[in-house]
């Protein structure tokens, strides 16, 4: 019983690996360039990256300055 189960699982694994082995891939240099390009294109509109003025960020309270 357990042998049939093991064979079924092994067969499933082989089929799965065939699917994975068969996909198309690109070079890391190309993939990296595209990740970088995305970052660059969107950097200016990333509030946590470039920072937004206090007046525009609802979480940054506009507290008056107290000079001691």
């Amino acid at each position, binding site marked *: 019983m357990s042998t049939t189960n093991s064979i079924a699982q092994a067969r499933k694994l082989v089929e799965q690996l065939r699917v994975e082995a068969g996909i198309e891939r690109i070079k*890391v240099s190309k993939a990296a360039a595209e990740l970088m390009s995305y970052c660059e294109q969107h950097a200016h509109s990333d509030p946590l*990256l470039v920072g937004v003025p206090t007046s525009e960020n609802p979480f940054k309270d506009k507290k008056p300055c107290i000079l001691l």
Partner: protein
Amino acid sequence: MAKLHQLCARGGALETAPRSTSNHHPTEMATHELHPNDTLTTLKMESESLKAKLEEERAKLHDVELHQVAEKIEALGQFVMKTRRTLKGHGNKVLCMDWCKDKRRIVSSSQDGKVIVWDAFTTNKEHAVTMPCTWVMACAYAPSGCAVACGGLDNKCSVYPLSLDKNENLAAKKKSVAMHTNYLSACCFTNSDMQILTSSGDGTCALWDVESGQLLQSFHGHGADVLCLDLAPSETGNTFVSGGCDKKANVWDMRSGQCIQSFETHESDINSVRYYPSGDAFASGSDDATCRLYDLRADREVAIYSKESIIFGASSVDFSLSGRLLFGGYNDYTINVWDVLKGNRVSILFGHENRVSTLRVSPDGTAFCSGSWDHTLRIWA
């Protein structure tokens, strides 16, 4: 402290997981014939040779490292991020949180069985539900903002419509949607309020119809508890990524139930997975104290975010809007901020007084929220 899954997990999760009738494994032969008299030995030999081929194919394209390509861009400056709000109200460890699309509301869930909806601007609690179980490990906001989903040790995912009437008993309208055979570890609505994706300690992920509770697709392939999942950004199509105690991160086709890519480079449980905003990559956080970046088109790990001084597990990760920053919440109570491209840490944030268990950037990227075993949530900006 023993990890929850170790308390809950029963052995051999994959073999005892229920098989859904809607995901009947295809019986027609693949183009390569499998001989009916295949023995275990020949199958094992073939899987070993396929694994080797997979590694070989991946290695051929490994011509450079991401951080090398990133050398030519400017380093990031100093970051000043502070706690801007502290949400207090949970009576025990905060386990999960999610933002509403309106960028101000948050749902959080706790070990004490409570699920709370907050207005993060004012820190007011708008709704509270007491679940029939403790350890509510998963919660999610519906895209419409009109409902929340949650679950945990009850092995279910339930949806609660949010009423405008604060006095209304939310528990009365509860709808049970998902049923697993072990704890619910994560849940998320797909592009509408109509479908929910879940992951479970039973080793599977599943897609459910909210209205009928019907199982639409199930995803089998992890060899142990699945701890996390993330849906691909809608532009990139119907896929999602999951991470588990088998140290694997799997990418799935939602329509067919097929695992299309699998990554196994972490040395311990993967607690969190999150897509890069373009959908071409995803990050993971693990008990092995590292976060990693996997590129889907190169089909490999392309960065590791680690330091010798970081020895505690990363529980939760998320990207800033442009994908340049990766925020990681850790079991040593800190939040580390990483330069995704160059690979170095740019900031370390202190404040929580116990493990950081959950972390999400707000939908418009103006802030991020962290939840902790110290019973609080913090909004950082």
